[in-house]
């Protein structure tokens, strides 16, 4: 298996542990990742200013992968949504494709609709498959409990994702947790959005959104919140201390990117391979529990 790794803007600058653990995990699983230097921002942050400009940027990225005959995996869920949506339109709406290609022409590019785009987690779940992951596990995480945060753009709009996972009752990420032997603990406010995209618009509202989920997860016996999007991590990890301060509460809830967690089960080193030392809220208890078994 071979994919172009689409990093986007946030992962390679603010989510180094996400990127590092993804590369190491893929190495272990025998998934080859190709870096395409010309990839830019996916286009998502520009869409609020100009949807059209955002889509041209997305199409440019798709065209670059097509040139190298590669499918794309993304780590950021907003990148996934933007690239998948542009791809969905390019494949199903000839008018859109022609219009976009008209713009790409002056960049010397053309997109013909031959690339598949998937979020890394979906690729693992759907294409690599749980059975193959299970076969690679050397350190089963039995006795470990964590909770999952799917985030919004990984699941929705479900139409562009061919309804792969049900936004009202998703299971892919929980299954990816449980394949390691760990238990995924449910909690009530699981559908809450992290609020990341309005942090710069109205901080108070955004932090309240993140707080709702932190409250809900923390009421359970769970060792960490496992997620798959750098924006969500900015809210739950990057802003956790601030929320604790402003709302006079305490969580100390470790936030892990999924490949950091999976990597533990694959026998990778938390410090050197999986970037645990870059975490702001150390997953001390979880790691101690693993060591003392």
């Amino acid at each position, binding site marked *: 298996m071979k994919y172009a790794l689409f990093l986007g803007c946030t992962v390679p600058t603010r989510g180094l542990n996400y990127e590092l653990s993804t590369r190491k995990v893929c190495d272990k699983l025998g998934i080859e990742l190709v870096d395409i230097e010309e990839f830019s921002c996916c286009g998502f942050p520009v869409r609020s200013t*100009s949807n059209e400009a955002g889509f041209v940027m997305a199409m440019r990225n798709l065209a670059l992968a097509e040139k190298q005959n590669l499918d794309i995996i993304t780590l950021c869920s907003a990148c996934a949504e933007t690239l998948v949506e542009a791809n969905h339109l390019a494949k199903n709406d000839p008018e859109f494709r022609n219009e976009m290609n008209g713009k790409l022409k002056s960049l010397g590019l053309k997109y013909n609709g031959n690339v598949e785009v998937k979020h890394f987690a979906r690729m693992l779940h759907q294409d690599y498959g749980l059975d193959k992951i299970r076969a690679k596990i050397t350190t089963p995480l039995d006795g470990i409990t964590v909770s999952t945060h799917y985030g919004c753009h990984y699941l929705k709009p479900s139409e562009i994702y061919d309804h792969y996972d049900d936004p009202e009752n998703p299971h892919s990420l929980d299954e990816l947790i449980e394949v390691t032997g760990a238990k995924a603990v449910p909690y009530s406010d699981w*559908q809450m959005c992290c609020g990341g995209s*309005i942090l710069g618009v109205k901080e108070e509202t955004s932090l309240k*959104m993140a707080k709702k989920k932190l409250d809900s997860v923390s009421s359970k016996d769970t060792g960490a919140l496992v997620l798959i999007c750098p924006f969500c991590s900015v809210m739950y990890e990057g802003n956790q201390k601030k929320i604790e301060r402003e709302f006079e509460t305490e969580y100390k809830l470790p936030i892990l990117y999924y490949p950091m967690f999976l990597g533990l089960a694959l026998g990778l080193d938390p410090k050197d391979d999986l970037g645990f030392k870059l975490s702001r809220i150390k997953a001390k208890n979880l790691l101690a529990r693993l060591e003392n078994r």
Partner: protein
Amino acid sequence: MIEVNKLDPKFRYEVMRERGGEKISHCFTCGTCTASCPVNEVDEAFNPRKIIRMIVLGMKDNVLNSDFMWLCAGCSSCQERCPQGVSITDIMMALKNIAVRNGITHPAFQVQASEIYKFGRLYEVGDLNDRREKLELPRIPEKPEPIRKIYELIGIDKLVESEEINQE
């Protein structure tokens, strides 16, 4: 209060011409969107059903000069559940685009668009490349030229070049 002389009955059509805006007239004001909205859950001032209603009524100035659409987190919860198939998330995006065309930009988004114009990405990589190297991660090149070209093609380069932020 609705001031009738300020209404713009064509506003709805302006929204309908945008991608995803087509079905706005199908809304029967059931409120499912608002009940599903995570922003509304913590901040009642933000109410998608009300915004859809205001568009249909033609309250263009009120909508474009409010904070409303900038507060949408783009989560698509509403859109997934709308019984009438109204693409509410897309409509919020369309409103932002229309506002920008009318000279109204939220500073947060203006900054994002400008950074991407400058660096080709949302954040300057700069010194971070040294940190990346220490972790044995590949260096990230900063090549904004193709992105600048796209901005010029679409005509939004003028927006980022004026350092002035339009919103009072």
